[in-house]
């Protein structure tokens, strides 16, 4: 049985700057996300991974390309009414739980704001009950509802960010570096929570991060981005165990492991940038594992 593709991105381009001198943050990328899976998006800072996430959720007006969400092209939606409908189904968790929560709002106001916008409750009692349910779903207490953001620790704040993302019961969540601002022991708590919520609510995640160990751990499939393009995409285990693209190999060779013996022998593989001239083709090296490059490049890499 063919798995359902909840999101399909086709030829997405996101340029900034002027038309004559555009900055190509995302340059013609295509991928899809299956329902219920986690797709990890990794790469160095400036590679366009966050821009990709923000374009998909329409925080930017995309330059070109299609974004099919449940079969409907959302890249071209203009009317506020239609956007609102789609916003209910796709939500975002942001990186910095200190900057993404309004310091002048209580937890209940932050989490319940979407209810107000979408008119999703009958009376105050129902709203209060819904907020309390969400707080408990993310491992906080309903007594926390009246507190302000500064009264929470970093990990708790990120839980509020997650509760806010869950408030409209979305099916698709874009998590943009949701744990990089947190401490190691707290990171594990939040990642476990994300996994548990995914199981309970059949959520689909687009997980954007630069911490490769964590991405490998949480993702079913991984897309590696470099300079605005996807260079390799495949099942998480394959990307890590048998990387094909030289950039992926270089990136993985730089990840330090908590193992002093192997660290002493670590050999980093450097990567030198290759200008792309010619058409980039997508080559499937094994089922579901794609490498991107020009015909000449692929030949050089022995693929």
């Amino acid at each position, binding site marked *: 049985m063919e798995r359902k593709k909840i999101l399909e991105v086709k030829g997405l381009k996101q340029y900034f700057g002027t038309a004559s001198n555009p900055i190509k943050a995302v340059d013609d990328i295509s991928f899809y996300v299956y329902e219920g899976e986690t797709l990890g998006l990794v790469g*160095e*800072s400036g590679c366009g991974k966050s821009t990709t996430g923000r374009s998909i959720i329409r925080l930017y007006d995309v330059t070109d390309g299609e974004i099919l969400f449940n079969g409907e092209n959302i890249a071209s939606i203009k009317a506020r009414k239609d956007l609102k409908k789609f916003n209910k189904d796709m939500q975002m968790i942001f990186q910095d739980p200190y900057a993404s929560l309004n310091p002048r709002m209580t937890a209940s106001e932050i989490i319940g704001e979407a209810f107000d916008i979408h008119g999703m409750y009958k009376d105050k009692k129902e709203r209060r009950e819904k907020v309390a349910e969400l707080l408990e779903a993310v491992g906080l207490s309903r007594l926390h509802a009246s507190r302000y953001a500064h009264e929470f*620790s*970093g*990990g*708790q704040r990120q839980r509020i960010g997650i509760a806010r993302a869950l408030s409209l019961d979305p099916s698709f969540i874009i998590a943009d570096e949701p744990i990089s601002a947190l*401490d*190691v*022991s*707290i*990171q*594990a*708590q939040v*990642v*476990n929570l994300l*996994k548990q919520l995914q199981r309970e609510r059949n959520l689909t995640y687009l997980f954007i991060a*630069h911490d*490769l*160990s*964590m991405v*490998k*751990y*949480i*993702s*079913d499939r991984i897309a590696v981005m470099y300079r605005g393009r996807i260079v390799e995409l495949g099942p*998480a285990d394959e990307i*890590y165990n048998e990387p094909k693209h030289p950039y992926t190999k*270089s*990136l*993985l*060779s*730089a*990840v*330090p*492991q*908590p*193992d*002093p*013996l*192997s*660290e002493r022998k*670590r050999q*980093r593989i450097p*990567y030198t940038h290759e200008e792309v001239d010619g058409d980039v083709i997508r080559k499937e090296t094994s089922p579901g594992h794609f490498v991107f490059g020009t015909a000449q490049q692929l030949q050089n890499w022995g693929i």
Partner: protein
Amino acid sequence: MRPKLVEVKDLHIHFKTYAGIVQAVRGVSFELYEGETLAIVGESGSGKSVTSNALMKLIPQPPGIYAGGEILFNGRDLVPLNDKEMAKIRGNDIAMIFQDPMTSLNPTMKIGKQITEVMLQHNAASRSDAKARAVELLHQVGIPMPEKRYNQYPHELSGGMRQRVVIAIALAADPKLLIADEPTTALDVTIQAQILELMKDIQKKRNTSVIFITHDLGVVANVADRVAVMYAGQIVEYGTVNEIFYNPKHPYTWGLLGSMPDLNSSADDLLRTIPGSPPNLISPPKGDAFAPRNEHALAIDYEQEPPMFKVSETHYAKTWLLHPDAPKIPVPLAVQQRIDSYVQEGDDVWNAKKF
């Protein structure tokens, strides 16, 4: 045995706040030998940065208070020194690399001047030599076209290049001790690997001692000779890097090791977490500060603070679980399995090099 460069004895640092006195560092003792790297790991608020800033006497007073203890640098106690005396030591004997190269450089000052400033301040070079030495330093830290960079401003460089400039500034007066406070946290993994290689290379050439503050255990495994694990203002375990990673004794160290996935972790098992959050250091809990988060806590943990128990000549841990009468708690299975997967038959783990 190499000569001792730094010896910190029972250091206490407090901060006066409106809410009360925060006991940020509560009796930290360690020593540092010439040419070695000591990594201090712990969560934010564990006191690792306060400890390292205290070595440089960078704790603002008020609100900071040096409430007790000694910091011996080459046998001389730094705690009673005044600002003028410290100015001779800062940059000259002890230099620091900060986390964020975007904010630790002066945006209005050319890179070259920021490096020569240190040399001229400490009369480490004459005005005419300073430029040549600065260019040489930029070259040493791997910055291409150093003559051109000398006359550029920080915004003209990438993050990784800026951090190299920060390292060049720290090395300008040839310090004996380098304190690196999360020097690679703001950088990408590939750049991080380059900077770590650079720091190790420089250390080897100059025999500099390094105190490396980080929360990334992968980085610790890469750079450290010895490791101190901090929790709630205290060192709870310290030992050689192999002892900490392959024979951890403190439940907090188990928690740290277990909460980080490695590239071999399977997505099926949940990460081990440390439940709860660190204690409020305005009124530190009685007994073992880690007890409320410790699934193996004993009754005595809530009564009396554990001493440092000796595991080996170089390995100590502050937990009652090491008391002869305590129940024998094995290392959690997930952590043990990971250790087993790392250590292969025939690896020389315990007699390996150094100290």
